[in-house]
């Protein structure tokens, strides 16, 4: 994990977090895409959006396999 001055610290932390939570296999690729800062689809500092995301049951067996 190298410090990248071209990205804000917030961005770097979020990207590193995504790498970590990908390994938990609790999220689908689609959800991880949504969580990535580049798309900014889910503002990490918005409680409602994050709540909606953790409750969204889009994890299907196929997608879990895809995570593997």
């Amino acid at each position: 994990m190298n410090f990248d001055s071209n990205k804000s610290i917030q961005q770097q932390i979020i990207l590193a977090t995504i790498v970590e939570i990908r390994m938990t296999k609790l999220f689908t690729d689609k959800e991880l895409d949504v969580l990535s800062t580049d798309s900014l689809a889910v503002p990490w500092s918005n409680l409602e959006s994050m709540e909606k995301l953790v409750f969204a049951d889009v994890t299907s067996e196929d997608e879990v396999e895809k995570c593997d």
Partner: protein
Amino acid sequence: MRLIELEVHNLRGIKHLKVEPNGGNLLIYGPNGSGKSGIVDAIDFLLTGKIARLSGDGTKDITLKEHGAHISAEPKDAWVKATFSINGLKEHIHLERNLKTAGKLKYPEKHAAVLAPILEAAGRGNYVLSRRELLKVITADGATRAQQIQGLLNIPDVETTRKTLQKLESKVKEQWKNAKETVEQSKQAIFASCEGASLEVEVMRSLVNTHRTNIGLQPATTDLDWFTGISVQPNSEKDSYLFAKQVAGNLLKSTTRRDDISSGLNELTSKLLEITNDLAAFRLHKRMQLTQLGQIAVEEDKADSCPLCDMQWDHQELTDYLAKKIKNSASVIKDKESIEALASGLTAALGTIAEGLKQIISEIQVLPELASSQKIITDWLNRLNQAITELKSPIENYPFSFNPGSMNSVLAENGHTALSDINDHLQKLAPNESEAIKSQVFLHKLSTLWQALNMASLRMSKCEKALLRATAISENFLISRDAILNQLFASVNDRFVELYRYLNSDNEGNFTSELRPETAAIILKVDFFGYGMHPPHALHSEGHQDSMGLCLYLALMEKLTEQKIDIVVLDDVVMSVDADHRRLLCELLVKLFQKKQFIITTHDRVWASFLSHQGLIASKNRLSFTGWDVENGPHISNWKDIWSELETSLEDNKVPEAAAKLRRWGEEFFSNCCHNLKAPVVYKSHGSYDFGDFFSPAIGKLNDLLKLATKAATSWDQKDRLPLLEEIKTKYSDSCKQFNIEQAAINPNVHYNKWATHTPAEFRKVVQAYQNLHENFLCKKCSSLLTLTTEGALPLDLRCACSDINWNLKCK
């Protein structure tokens, strides 16, 4: 990004000003109140749309709109324009911002993508340092320093996200707890309506199949078929009464459960009494809770003080202390767990009764003749719910609001009487029905309850998954944050140590420091001459603190603006750094920050001259602010060197004033010459040196070095260099002779400034001698002082900052 040209109009103290540093370092020298910082404000405003000095502590009534423009100008007439060079772009970019539309920066649209990260970095103010901010970072407590540095790093966003994710985890956990409780209640409702006392699948399947057989249905082969075939909706009043009667009958029959509850309450009371009677144990329990709460608070806030008494602690020591205290209270934890397990069993048993009562109340509420009985069992239900609530935290809630030793209190003898009355009345309304009808009613009700349990279980499962996901995000965010910040801070700390050691190599060559983030604080501790790590303002002098602030800022700035902004604004930041350390600071800026463009303001002429002599500032990039007035703003002139200043004094017939200036300049100039040429100065234990101590060693050393340069050129057979060297030596010799004549003449007066005996014309000759001599020590091209480089004690070369002068001193 480097500043090529800056034009300021009607902003703050500046009426109109245009400077063209052309990407080079820029020096603005002038006395306090001459408007120097107006240039810093202008750059700040242009890049951020704000002026940092107009915000923060003590600026409550100051606004950019009202106080940003020059005193006599309207906001629409106040603007800043600048041209910048950008790394990787051939063409320069022109930026412009008007005070009236302060939020809007004008720039070529095609460069928006290139400018975005630069402006984002500029918005954090990483590139400006004033002494106002310098000490804040150093002397602040951990939390305040965290805010300062977080501001620089733009970490407030990170902190907001951390809090959001923490809230998310708590909220989802709360929802999971509620869902879990609903599942428990659903199970208790089934318990209350079943004759069986277990929800094990085998037991339930057997019960269901018995009732299915009673109504002529095949036993269910799979768990999904339990309620298949119960198509008739038993919704008549009679059926409802029948079901209520069954539930009431179950409750009345369950004497075992009542006995269990009664003995359980007695056991619980006895355990709680043991604790409360043993004051020490009770205190330990109470303190245990406090300690655990304290541990959470300290952990969450990364506090470095006790949350109760505010006594200062090292955070880690406090955390370790609390953990040890909790660990040592293992027996207390064991007791607590035993009491909570007992209370939990009681809660489930009482919950089953409560759910049964709810079902009965729901069925009989349409029967006015049972109103009084209904009221009694409703009161009973309320008491049960209160008892259940209290039993969820038994130690905290003891003594209870109910009397656990009294059957009437929780198990309500009068409630049982009312229940019997209800049962009798329902018996009349729904006389003995066939087993088939009873089973039909039972299965229908059970299917409803079973469905509710499934729904609740599904919800709990969803909450469980959501909690796992929320926890994963929250925990991994913290892990990632710590990893990235630790890496960043370790790197900044290393650079900070390197820079500080450079500035203080004389006595703090082994300096170390510790800079690390903690949840809500940033810890900075520095070594004090090998006597341990301490807060930076605990033992170090103000000058050292200034040095630390500057070094920490430079280390942070370098890391955060890399490849974005090369501009570094130092707004009067060396006030309390002594002369020797300023020299090193200058060297440090020249040697270690070659890629940066420094914009330096100072009111100190010696420092200003020194920056020029060391080659940091080209002579064309020096601005002199000589004064300021409301009408015209700063009085700006091209750099007024010492000779012009002396002439001004002499024209005003102020010989003593000119003499004092010359003496001060001479001391500084020749001490710098001695430093750069490594000329030996006679040591004085009192450390007080003056002009006389420096000029002679400096003159002698340059003479020796020029001779050595001639000798080296001869040894290498560089005949083409010899004529120029001879010319320089001759000129130098003449200058020295003239200087010695004047110096001899004025020597008695040097230390006392008795210049009044000289006329301006006489003193001009002295000045001329000084000027002629000093020119021999400088490069004409870059104005920097000649410097001797060595390899160990061996002279290598004599050169200037731009290398236009570069005399080899090493013989063949």
